[in-house]
């Protein structure tokens, strides 16, 4: 069983559509991070959420941390082909070590 379960695993949508991807766990975390990874590149940090119920916006991306700090969602409005990639959530261990990733959601946005 993975510490972080991401869903869906794959998502293929048309340009202009909205979408939401999820990151769930049975554990409580002090913070949670979202990364995007493009083919042939390493993951790049998008945002860190810290407070239960927190909502952060990054242009067309909206990130929410669950009230109980066990889950998170990423919503993309009016998706564009440039949003194509692997979206990963990740958490740190309590001691600030062991950055652990979920399995990722692979998003494809078709023009």
């Amino acid at each position, binding site marked *: 069983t993975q510490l*972080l379960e*991401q869903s869906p695993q794959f998502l293929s949508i048309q340009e202009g559509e909205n979408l939401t991807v999820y990151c769930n766990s049975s554990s409580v975390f002090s913070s949670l991070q979202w990364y995007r990874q493009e083919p*042939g*590149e*390493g*993951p*790049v*940090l998008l945002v*860190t959420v810290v407070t239960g119920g927190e909502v952060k916006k990054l242009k067309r991306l909206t990130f929410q941390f669950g009230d109980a700090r066990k889950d998170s969602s990423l919503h993309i409005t009016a998706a564009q082909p440039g949003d194509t990639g692997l979206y*990963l959530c990740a958490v*740190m261990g309590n*001691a*600030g*070590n*062991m*950055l*652990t*990733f*979920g*399995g*990722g959601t*692979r998003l494809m946005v078709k023009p």
Partner: protein
Amino acid sequence: EAGVAQSPRYKIIEKRQSVAFWCNPISGHATLYWYQQILGQGPKLLIQFQNNGVVDDSQLPKDRFSAERLKGVDSTLKIQPAKLEDSAVYLCASSLNWGAEAFFGQGTRLTVV
């Protein structure tokens, strides 16, 4: 500011051969991570260094994998002997310190045939 450098970018070896990967982290970054990313999966942490000391290597298959960061800067990850299931992208990341933002290199894509 230069990013995390990894080499080689690609490597193809036969099973039972040995292979080594090299990582040069961002200057001044004390924490260094090695991850294995199998196709279609998220990265899996293999080992974490703080300067030249190992913080966590609980998921490193120590019968065949080894890693070192002797001077607390560059790091090498070695596989000896390689198995087919070791085919993956090996990512190196560094951060200023524990819990700080991690920056990733482009990775080394290993194919074991």
